[in-house]
């Protein structure tokens, strides 16, 4: 569905997107992750034809984004960040206007507007002025707009930005439903959203791809080089050097201390498990032990690991 080849965008001397290549297959639900300023929105703007790439190219649904820009835009349903809408229009009027500029007319237009109003739960709001809608409903109008012409690809830029937990849940459920029938690309930095909805993740930072895989594969790859949490009464000046001498232990740091109980995080090499050796050490040194467990890595750990600046 998307085939990006060496996409690059520079603004003067600043490179916002640097040699980005990735593919998204039909039916994929892709999470496009990155910290603020990573180049997510610039990449999306290039894909949607709003910005021309400085170098490289991409095709969407088989259409070249530069040579066949109009066809590409027809194949995309795009909801930009902050969902800009015409506040003085009513919901149905706005969707009808958007349907018309996307090439719909007559009975088909009426059917599609009615269908997206139903799909996005806007029935009660159809005659309301957009200015009077809550943020959650504005988001729904934005989604309905992106869907009105039945695009093959849906691109959503920060779809749950600024919503309360109930609204987030509503939008997330809606996206899940939409993803059953079409390819969806979601740009976000809310990782739980991606874990719940996406079958593929692309992580970018400073304009470059850091990882592109299924979420579980990314988590497994980090888990292999994961960490062990130890809670003992051994003091840090004794425990940290002793633990550091165990085979495969890369780094030991104190996490917290309370009522003589100290919690340590022990980073270990990939594909190793030092828990047995740590427990033996505790026995040998007669350290009181309260817990010893391996932490389960999350997508958030992968994200932090790949994008942290220190």
């Amino acid at each position, binding site marked *: 569905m998307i085939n990006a080849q060496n996409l690059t965008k520079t*603004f003067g001397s600043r490179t916002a997107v640097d040699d980005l290549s990735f593919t998204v297959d039909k039916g994929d639900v892709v999470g496009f992750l990155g910290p603020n300023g990573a180049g997510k929105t610039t990449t999306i*703007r290039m894909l*949607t*034809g*709003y*910005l*021309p790439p400085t170098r490289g190219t991409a095709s969407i649904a088989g259409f070249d984004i530069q040579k066949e820009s*109009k066809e590409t*835009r*027809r194949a*995309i349903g*795009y909801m*930009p960040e*902050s969902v*800009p*809408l*015409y*506040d*003085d229009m009513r919901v149905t009027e706005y969707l009808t*206007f*958007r349907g*018309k*500029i*996307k*090439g719909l007319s007559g009975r088909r237009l009426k059917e599609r507007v009615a269908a997206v109003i139903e799909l996005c739960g806007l029935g009660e709001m159809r005659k309301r002025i957009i200015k009077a809608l809550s943020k959650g409903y504005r988001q729904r109008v934005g989604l309905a*707009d992106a869907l009105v012409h039945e695009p093959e690809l849906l691109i959503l830029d920060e779809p749950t930005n600024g919503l309360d937990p109930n609204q987030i849940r509503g939008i997330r459920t809606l996206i899940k439903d939409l993803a059953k029938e079409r390819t969806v690309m979601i740009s976000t930095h809310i990782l739980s959203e991606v874990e719940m909805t996406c079958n593929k993740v692309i992580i970018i930072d400073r304009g470059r791809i850091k990882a592109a895989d299924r979420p579980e594969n990314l988590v497994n790859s980090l888990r292999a080089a994961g960490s062990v949490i130890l809670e003992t009464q051994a003091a840090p000046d004794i425990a940290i050097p002793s633990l550091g001498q165990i085979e495969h232990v890369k780094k030991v740091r104190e996490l917290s201390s309370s009522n003589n109980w100290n919690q340590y995080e022990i980073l270990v090499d990939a594909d190793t498990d030092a828990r047995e050796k740590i427990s033996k050490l505790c026995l040998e040194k007669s350290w009181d032990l309260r817990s010893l467990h391996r932490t389960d890595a999350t997508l958030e750990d992968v994200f932090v690991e790949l994008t942290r600046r220190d």
Partner: protein
Amino acid sequence: MLAPLIKKEFRSFTRSPLGWVLFSYTILMEGICLSTAMKSLADTPLSENLVYVTFHTPNFWFFFLFLFPLITMRSFAEEEKSGTLECLLTTPVETSHLVWSKFLARVAFYTLLWIPGIVVFLSFGWITDLPTPFILEILVSSHLFLFVLGIYFISLGNFASCLTSNQIIAGIITIGFLIIQYFLGFVTVIWGSQFVAAEFFTLFSAQAHLTNACRGILDTAPLILYGLLTAFTLLLTHHAVNYRRWKR
């Protein structure tokens, strides 16, 4: 593609207070100009017709020039500020569609603003029970000239609006453009018409052309000039919209 965009633009006037304020402002100012002209005609017998005197009252250019920043300042500036420009240009809408729709909708609205004034002129004889102090050709030529001048000023206002995301600044830039244009007409008045470029400045003098049009002389040279300038400004607007979004 163009029709829904024009409709949307035009309706942004009819559904907003600004559109109705502009309509009232134009009717009020035209009324003031006309009543000033009628008072002049009542005080002293004049050699010029009523249309001429109405469009040469001190208020006329003041109100006329201030009309255009108000009509055009929101056109691109508001779309850019609210982010709806991105929404439009990521659909099959092209930049040229946007430029034309914003221009044509404003030309339609501007044309509508003159209708009450024309009706008042046409009903003058019926209301006052006096012989109409102008001939129909003069009413047509003066309003045709104001129409052509207006579409040029609208294109300038739209251009100013695409240069910024702040509609107040857009309005100030527009009034700046129009004041420069207005004072070009005074160059030959100040320096005389004996220097080399005098003819060029005369060609740019909207005041002189309006004077001629109000006497029933409709010169095609300024109409062609304003038509060409309008086309050039629209082209410039098209490039400026693309340049501003591509450099972002």
